């Protein structure tokens, strides 16, 4: 199964939102009413998770 589909729906939507906001964490944070570091931390956690899945 493609890596993207191995993720929960929430995280898939997160990646799509990132893509649709032209890769702008700032824009995503604004839309989600969250601060920039909070959104960045979520991004970093997801990146770590995907890297772990890739190495499996």
């Amino acid at each position, binding site marked *: 199964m493609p890596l993207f589909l191995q993720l929960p729906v929430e995280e898939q939507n997160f990646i799509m939102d990132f893509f649709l906001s032209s890769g702008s964490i700032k824009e995503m944070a604004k839309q989600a*009413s*969250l*601060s*920039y*570091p*909070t959104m*960045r*931390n979520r991004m*970093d*956690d997801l990146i770590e998770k995907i890297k772990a899945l890739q190495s499996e």
Partner: protein
Amino acid sequence: MNRMNWKTWVNPFSRYPESTLFLIGIFAFLLLYVLCSLFQMKMDGILHYTFADQNTWWEILLQNTEVIGLTLLVLCILAFLYNKKTRIIDVVNAVLVSCIAQVFLIAISGIPFFQESSLRLAKAAATPERIMENKTDLMVVLVFSCLLVPFLVYSVVLLYHGFRTATNMKSWQQISVFFIVLFVLNLISQLYFF
């Protein structure tokens, strides 16, 4: 606009943009300075204050700024060790916004009744048997200290959440080192500004 709830009070750093937090932090710092000048107190550690009877308003402002500056320097170094993506503004906001709770600390500490009891008890501390002679002062200090503790805890909680949001620190080792550094920094700055 989302409603504020208790989570926002405990961790405003997850919701508000850095510009808003910075303005709140600067306001808190200035208000803290005004109260320090009013009640003749000054910072000698990020979580500690001392009497400033012999100091001018300028000396109080300078020392408060130096304490904040020293705290920022140490926490920024720690933050970059934890996460190279950390922004300085987020660490600055963590330190400044934690001053909000300390405003209440100073306001309570500055109550004349409490200050006078504290001073009398401090003078009696040289001879421990004399402390028990000042039972009224002892009770006053104990009761007011109980009022101060929640605000001190709140200040530490704000600093912790701000730093955690800035650095994305997760492991118990990182959190433990943070608190140890905070404690040691508080002690060292008290010695330095003694």
